[in-house]
């Protein structure tokens, strides 16, 4: 089962930046790369839980603001030699709108 919902406009997210989408207790970081690709990860660094949404975005990576771990936006996983993954969520872009699959989010959050 999918439950795609329209969450925000691509232009609501700064290029090379992120917005926090809050679903119940769960914070989801929605990132926008320089060429407007959109990624959604749980807003928790696998290292010490830092808010990835607050990091500096470069290429398809984000650097966690707490201890500079680099996380791949596509997989949510830390760049070696660091190890660990933030959970990633399905997003898609239609026109300029960003859609998030809440069913997948709920499955993960459960």
């Amino acid at each position, binding site marked *: 089962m999918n439950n795609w919902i329209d969450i925000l406009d691509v232009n609501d997210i700064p290029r090379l930046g992120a917005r926090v989408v809050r679903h119940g207790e769960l914070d*989801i970081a929605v990132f926008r790369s*320089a060429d407007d690709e959109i990624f959604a990860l749980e807003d928790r660094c696998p290292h010490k*839980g830092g808010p990835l949404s607050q990091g500096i975005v*470069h290429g398809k990576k984000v650097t966690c603001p707490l201890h500079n771990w680099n996380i791949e936006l596509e997989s949510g996983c830390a760049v070696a030699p660091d190890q660990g993954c933030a959970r990633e969520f399905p997003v898609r872009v239609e026109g300029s709108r960003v859609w998030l699959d809440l069913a997948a989010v709920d499955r993960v959050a459960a």
Partner: protein
Amino acid sequence: MDMSTPMGRGPRMKLVMVGNGMAGVRTLEELLKLAPDLYDITVFGAEPYPNYNRILLSPVLAGEQTVDDIVLNPLDWYSENAITLHTGKKVVKIDRSARFVEAEDGTRAEYDRLLLATGSNPFMLPVPGADLEGVISFRDIADVDAMIHACSKYRHAVVIGGGLLGLEAANGLMKRGMDVTVVHLAPWLMERQLDEPAARLLQQNLEAKGMKFLLQKQTAELVSSPSPASGGGVGERASEHRVTAIRFKDGDEVPADLVVMAVGIRPNTELAESAGLHCNRGIVVNDTMQTFDPRIYSIGECAAHRGIAYGLVAPLFEQAKVCANHLAHYGIGRYEGSVTSTKLKVTGIDLFSAGDFTGGEGTEAILYSDPIGGVYKKLVIKDNKLVGGVMYGDTVDGAWYFSLLRDGKNVSELRDHLMFGQDHCGNLGHQGINKAASMTDDMEVCGCNGVCKGDIVKAIREKGLFTLEDVRKHTKASGSCGSCTGLVEQILAVTAGGDYSATPKTRSMCGCTDHTHEEARAAIKQNKLLTIPQVMEFMEWRTPNGCASCRPALNYYLISAWPGEAEDDPQSRFINERAHANIQKDGTYSVIPRMWGGNTTPSELRRIATVAEKYNIPTVHVTGGQRIDLLGVKKEDLPKVWADLDMPSGHAYGKALRTVKTCVGAEWCRFGTQDSTRMGIDLEKAFFKMWAPHKVKLAVSGCPRNCAEVAIKDVGIIGVDSGWEIYVGGNGGIKTEVAQFLVKVKTPQEVLEYSGAFLQIYREEARYLDRTVHYIERVGLDYVKKKILDDAEGRRALYERLMFALSVERDPWVERAREGKLKHEFETVAA
């Protein structure tokens, strides 16, 4: 050329590597990181082993490690990376037109790119008897095996060559019970690394362990005569063709059942020369490690770069990085040569040498000699820079001296204390223990990341790390505040072997570029670059939009070079400077409003109290900078908190003007000579909103009792009866640094102008993340004095540039709390 299919569609290109040693395999590792699918890789190695750490042959010989311990890439590594490995096959032919190589046994491999990493051969003295049994070199595992075998059968070993390698061989043989004599042509040992006094100490030390020396002796012949006088084998007759003695030009003779020649190495260029490649004391390569045949690269001990064939591992790894970059078609890196240092791997001997230690015209030497204590140090200085040094008996500061040397730092300010090491140059803040060797495995090295010595040693051994950068990546040690860097380098030296440290002459900004901070600044200024993408395009960044380390630096360089014209890029700011508050470990923020000169009012305090209650702020803390910190503020509350506080931003989150600490001064204090509070407030108001390469802290004291602690501030002012003394470059952080006296002035207006001019030159010239102390250390206080004191016009111009830069800045809290700037930063989206 089929350079068009980098992503593995269609046939892959073929890379063949001849030589399976450290430099070559490191190149493959770097290449696989950059372009894992670009090539089908084939490797030929003449030895029957996978890649091992040749530096550690000495500890293997000495029985301190085993061959298994020193293997860097086990056979699995080759198969995991789909590399075809031919061990025990010596390549004897390169066909450059048909593009294949051929081994002795006829094995062929075609190539699109060929990497020659054939290393070097030991030089064998061409004396009669050099081909006798028992005459060997010290170069590979086979040599070590032969030596170990000989140790169980024979007694007398002679090592020809009293250099680094020879002494390590002699030490190992002695440890295995041999009676060892070292024969050396020069008047003292290790003459290329040591001066005579240091070498004498070394010799005494080794003699005390039982080693014998024959200096200034020239070998004439190695003889084989089965006479009983030679000592012979224990329990076994020496074979007829085995060496039994060494004879010198002066007719002397010494018994020898084993002769190890360690008189030097020669780049192994035989194969390259036979293929017609240009060689001159090595296979000649350019700065991209390419030979005269553009399809053929060469790195390692066989390659001659700008006339030098390096024999130490650190420069070779630099070469590997550059070579891999070009093989991967990135085409950016350049190798520009290295400065090297040496350490002798003989347990119990502490020795370090680097650079030009002999001195000569235009140089000065600082000497420390304690022959009874067995300590000798010599530092050679030229034009206020350290250019070389030798240390014996106490090498704790070797890494520090080497970094001063490599960075070409001006040491005139340190000179008086230089000889006594880093700890005597003002390190009070975070001293800890600094003898890596004496530390136990459970002792903490890196206090920031909680890394113990054992963790570092384990990572170095298991992961085959060689550089400081590698250790940082894998263990985090020294990756945060950096104060344990020297210690980590020492552990590396002890664990991985001598020549460990990174050696580029200039440091690039980060992995995204080879350009230095200075080059980026100059390009921005000279070409009027106004945005980060412009800089990256102009300077050919190799990443699409940099990283978390270069982007903030570039953003600062742009706004400081072109105030009012270059636009600040919030996405290239660290979160604290983007949110204008300090992120805390739980993701909340802290808010520190500005209190001019540390003064506040009942009404401000009342507002702070109200805000703390209204927004349920859990902690209210008085800071060291005479202000109040509200901790645990939710990000979405920040604009409201700022609006309710109605106080200016304290910039406690930024690389910016932080606090101006003051004492109460002449207004209240019975000792006060000047109104320090007023001066502090004036300074703080004048420089408010100033971004800088790093945080900037000021203080003003009203008399020499110095209650505002100005000696540890970037700019510290002390009021005296006749005016004001200005001190610069103090630091109370990781490493305590006492501020240095800059000038004494008469009026508050002069205090503003001189302080402002100093801050502006720091803003214009310092590298991003260098504090004022680091900047002054680099350029020297004399330079700063020349610019600020001697050049009145220049000083005023600096001050005016600062005033202009500040005139275009606005209070970020006002913009966000009252004008809704960058609202999205503080709003979450519900779903």
